[in-house]
């Protein structure tokens, strides 16, 4: 029950913060839409070289891939951004003083942030289809089934970055580097199962594209593997975060920006 009070507070104040930082959110939306327009222009310039069916699949893949990238990068960045912001404003210590453990507060904030970002994406996907003049249906049920393990995996990686943020505080350049890493992880051939499948995020992102954009199906065993895979990365991320926290407490550098 105590955890519930904390979690609902994170939902309430997460939404209040979104409202108070509305300008930044609107700027982010404009940014995404401009990107979609440029992608659309780029792909349509290829129109003469490939068939309309192939172009359609490519557009679907690009739209799904782009929004998957947004979901992944926001999921990863949320923990580290929260820590950096807390260290800058001075609220990180209070997060660390909660009896639940900082990781639960940060995880709750990340869940709220991820859901808000998802809602924004769900609004922007039809707008993107409109911009691209290319319509395709998305299985919303399957989207949520595949989104959960993707989030788990992203949050795990986010906690690893969070450990770096606790120790080094300014990790912006490293996070920028992570964007390239995400792109690489999204395109490695991780289906069917091979060694690449063990990398974080890759299996989940590849499956997302295969099912939602291309229309292929996956077995329930593979979905189970994705959940296990995501959960393992989340646990690993939290463990590494705890090690980072212990190191920062030993060095006395927690909260100093």
């Amino acid at each position, binding site marked *: *029950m*105590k*955890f519930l*009070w*904390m979690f*609902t*507070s994170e939902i309430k*104040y997460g939404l*209040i*913060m979104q409202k*108070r*930082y509305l300008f930044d959110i609107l700027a982010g939306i404009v940014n995404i839409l401009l990107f979609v327009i440029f992608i659309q222009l780029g792909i349509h310039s290829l129109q003469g070289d490939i068939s309309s069916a192939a172009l359609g699949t490519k557009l679907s893949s690009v739209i799904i891939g782009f929004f998957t990238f947004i979901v992944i990068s926001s999921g990863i960045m949320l923990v580290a951004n929260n820590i950096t912001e807390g260290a800058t*404003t*001075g*609220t990180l*210590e*209070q*997060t*660390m*003083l*909660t*009896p*639940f*453990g900082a990781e639960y*507060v940060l995880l709750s904030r990340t869940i709220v942030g991820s859901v808000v970002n998802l809602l924004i994406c769900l609004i922007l996907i039809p707008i993107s289809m409109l911009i691209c003049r290319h319509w395709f249906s998305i299985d919303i049920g399957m989207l949520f089934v595949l989104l959960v393990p993707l989030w788990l995996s992203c949050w795990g990686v986010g906690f690893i970055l969070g450990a770096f943020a606790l120790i080094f505080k300014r990790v912006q350049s490293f996070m920028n580097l992570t964007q390239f890493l995400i792109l690489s992880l999204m395109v490695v051939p991780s289906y069917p199962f091979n060694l690449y499948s063990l990398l974080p995020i890759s299996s989940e992102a590849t499956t997302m594209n295969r099912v939602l954009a291309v229309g292929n199906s996956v077995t329930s065993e593979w979905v189970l593997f994705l959940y296990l895979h995501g959960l393992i990365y989340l646990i690993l991320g939290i463990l590494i975060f705890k090690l980072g926290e*212990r190191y920062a*407490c*030993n*060095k*006395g550098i*927690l*909260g100093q920006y």
Partner: protein
Amino acid sequence: MLEITNLSKTFKIKSREIKAVKPYDLTINKGEVVAFIGPNGAGKTTSIKMLCGLVTPTTGNICLCDMTISKRSKYLSQLGAVLEGARNIYWRLNPFENMEVFCRMRGLAPKVYLDRIDHYIKLLDLEKYKTIECRYLSRGNQQKVAIACILALNAEVLLLDEPTLGLDIEMSHRMMEIISGEKSKDRIIIVTTHDMEFIEQTVDRVVAFKDGNVFFKSTPTEIISKFGNGDNRLSTAYLKAIKEETL
């Protein structure tokens, strides 16, 4: 009762060892206000941070009513700390929202904290700022919000780093009354401060730090009677004591 045994902290920076706090023992009873004083860099804030688990001690143990700091969850649920005053609150939230976030982060239910929030908002004269985002408030009012957030937790141990910093004289006096009021609720209160008037009026015991050493633990009256030059002022006595570094 808060028992501190053999507590010390040594930081290793590159190949250098810095003894920030040298081993000391201290027992603080319920209903006691203790002030950590000393020059900048003496080890006061490191001690406070060790008490709230933000810095891991090199040696020693901290025990609150038979509950050691290693039982982090239970220990922290009994503790409230203002560490960097105005920097410890959410600037984009208003005072009420800040207090609610602090209470909920400790897992408190609304029926437990709502009355308390109202009480401390009134007590700290924050009523007219209740719905204004903290970034628009003065530094003194932000400091009041930070303290109100901690008081609303109803914690057994209060750790206050410079509670009167940035407060006007009237509010400083009000803060002394508030801390005395909290003391009467049997709370253990530890403050770090350079405000000698605050110490004289509010504090039961002074723990003085210098270069990481705890070099005396006495009541303000004892310090004045032993080191005072007859002007009956704690600041004069403290300056003399710190030169002699012993009591």
